[in-house]
């Protein structure tokens, strides 16, 4: 038996068990369903308005954008916060104390994050189809685009999420990553096109994955004519590949280094010290 392949299989199984655990936990379920519900309500009320310059429903434009946003958030922030929490409660140290446990842990996380991304996309997409019109849901090409944008999005965001999660020691500092991302949502044309924004703001938005994932999802689910109201008047798949590719490469280069450094420094007394701090916070 090859220890590495055993660990890979154990990691896949781990991801599956964690997925099952999270979907049988009320707190987690609430965390999935509540934001989804809020988004769906927002889209419901936006369905009558139109995208400026077209007769297309603003609600129907928001759905794919929100799917893209969900991908970016799930990949980056959820993974980062899970890493921070797993370090605080000792899950990571447990992996470190197990032979090849770190490999199993990481594979488990990737499986869990990918599955959660898929599930939350389905949670938004399926109910929205009942009240939104104009989405290309019967086209095989649309589903193909959706699939590769989703995969590319996860590759671009998960490693960076791991980097942030490794660098943040204190769960309180998660806000340092969370808040700029909230700001980016407003910049990235998720709920409203950004054609009217000043050029430099548009440039800032286009440096980050959220904008491109929103655009990519729109390119999958919206009719081709809607490309006309995007920046540059096209879906710009090539540019999307470029920017997401840079994030992916950056993440894949940085993540192993930062993860290894974090794992090396993990020890019982560090976990105990964090626990102490957490108890003080609770008081």
């Amino acid at each position, binding site marked *: *038996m*090859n*220890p590495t392949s*055993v*660990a890979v*299989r*154990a990691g896949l*199984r*781990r991801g599956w*068990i*964690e997925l099952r*655990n*999270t979907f049988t*936990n009320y707190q987690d379920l609430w965390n999935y369903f509540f934001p989804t519900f809020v988004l769906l309500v927002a889209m419901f009320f936006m369905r009558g308005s139109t995208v400026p310059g077209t007769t297309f429903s603003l609600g129907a434009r928001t759905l794919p954008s929100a799917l893209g946003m969900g991908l970016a958030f799930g990949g980056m922030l959820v993974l980062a916060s899970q890493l921070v929490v*797993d370090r605080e*409660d*000792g*899950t990571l*140290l*447990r992996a*470190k*104390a*197990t*032979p*090849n*446990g770190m490999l*199993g842990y990481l594979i488990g996380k990737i499986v869990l994050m990918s599955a959660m991304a898929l599930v939350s996309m389905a949670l938004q997409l399926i109910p929205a189809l009942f009240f939104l019109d104009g989405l290309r849901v019967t086209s095989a090409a649309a589903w193909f685009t959706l699939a590769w944008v989703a995969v590319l999005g996860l590759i671009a965001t998960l490693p960076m999420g791991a980097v942030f999660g490794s660098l943040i020691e204190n769960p309180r500092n998660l806000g340092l990553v969370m808040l700029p991302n909230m700001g980016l949502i407003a910049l990235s044309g998720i709920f409203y096109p950004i054609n009217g924004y000043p050029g430099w703001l548009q440039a800032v938005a286009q440096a980050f994955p959220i904008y491109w994932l929103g655009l990519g999802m729109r390119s999958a689910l919206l009719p081709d004519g809607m490309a006309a109201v995007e920046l540059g008047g096209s879906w710009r798949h090539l540019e999307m590949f470029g920017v997401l590719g840079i994030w992916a490469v950056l993440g894949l280069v940085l993540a192993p280094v930062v993860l290894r450094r974090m794992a090396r420094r*993990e*020890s*019982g*007394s560090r*976990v*105990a010290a964090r*626990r102490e701090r957490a108890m003080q916070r609770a008081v």
Partner: protein
Amino acid sequence: MTAVELPGVSQTPHPPDDDFVLDVRDLRMRYGSVDVLHGVSFTARRGEVLALLGPNGAGKTTTIEILEGFRMRSAGEVSVLGVDPGRGDERWRARMGVVLQSWRDHGKWRVRDLLTHLGTFYAPYSTARIPRPWPVTDLLDTVGLTAHADKRVHQLSGGQRRRLDVAIGIVGRPELLFLDEPTVGFDPAARREFHELVHRLADLDETTILLTTHDLDEAEKLADRILILAGGRIIADGSPDALARRVAGDAEIRWSRDGERFVHSAADATRFVRDLLREHGDSVQELEVRRASLEDAYMALVYEQESGARTGATARVWQQGSDR
């Protein structure tokens, strides 16, 4: 033994250190400009149970973390299962178990799922002598968690959680097990069961165990040898019995006579009692002889170390003791 050479039998002698599961020589640790360990040395043989005692901040956790390979040392020679822990690989990792003080991980997992999952990582390291992992059903029974196997980890009580930590520590059938204050939060029955488990691991499976505890009674029950770490040094190393006998030689004798109570301490308690009975005969009542306990020894040693009297008589006696 005869000197006849048998074909196929290797004649290479074992290197002298081969018997030692733990071999620590002059281990030093410095954080910034603060020295935490000033040259710690000790060894442990296969199947030996060592208790590491010492006041808080003495360097116990640092020492254990260096041995576990979780922390790099500043200087000194350390060999754990024949490997330098700073360079231990996953094969080496598979041969040891670690039970820490404060683990709250995997709260959403079911007990059985978690043990099965963590056990699978050890399967490739199974050998003919040590089949790995420990079968989960059997393991659950061993630590007394069978009734809770399908509970989620966060639903366990403190003592049950601790037993799960121990189960995880031994699921890979370690040759060396680190236990950091393993019985904190145990009720007396759970504590006794745990002690039986430790004896079983050491005696039947030849597991070498290094445990830290503040419970001197527990150390006395479990350990073959006790190490006292204070001020970054090992100030005592020996069996609980020898420790108690050598350090505080005087025994305490209590008795009552004609309704009056007496207390006396004597180096030779037997002779004192013989004389006492010869002199007063039947009027001596409620006779009690209390030998110096491990606790007395511990207090004396730690007090001496902390008050800076390291050249005192106790330390000298100890040096002689460990040279033997």
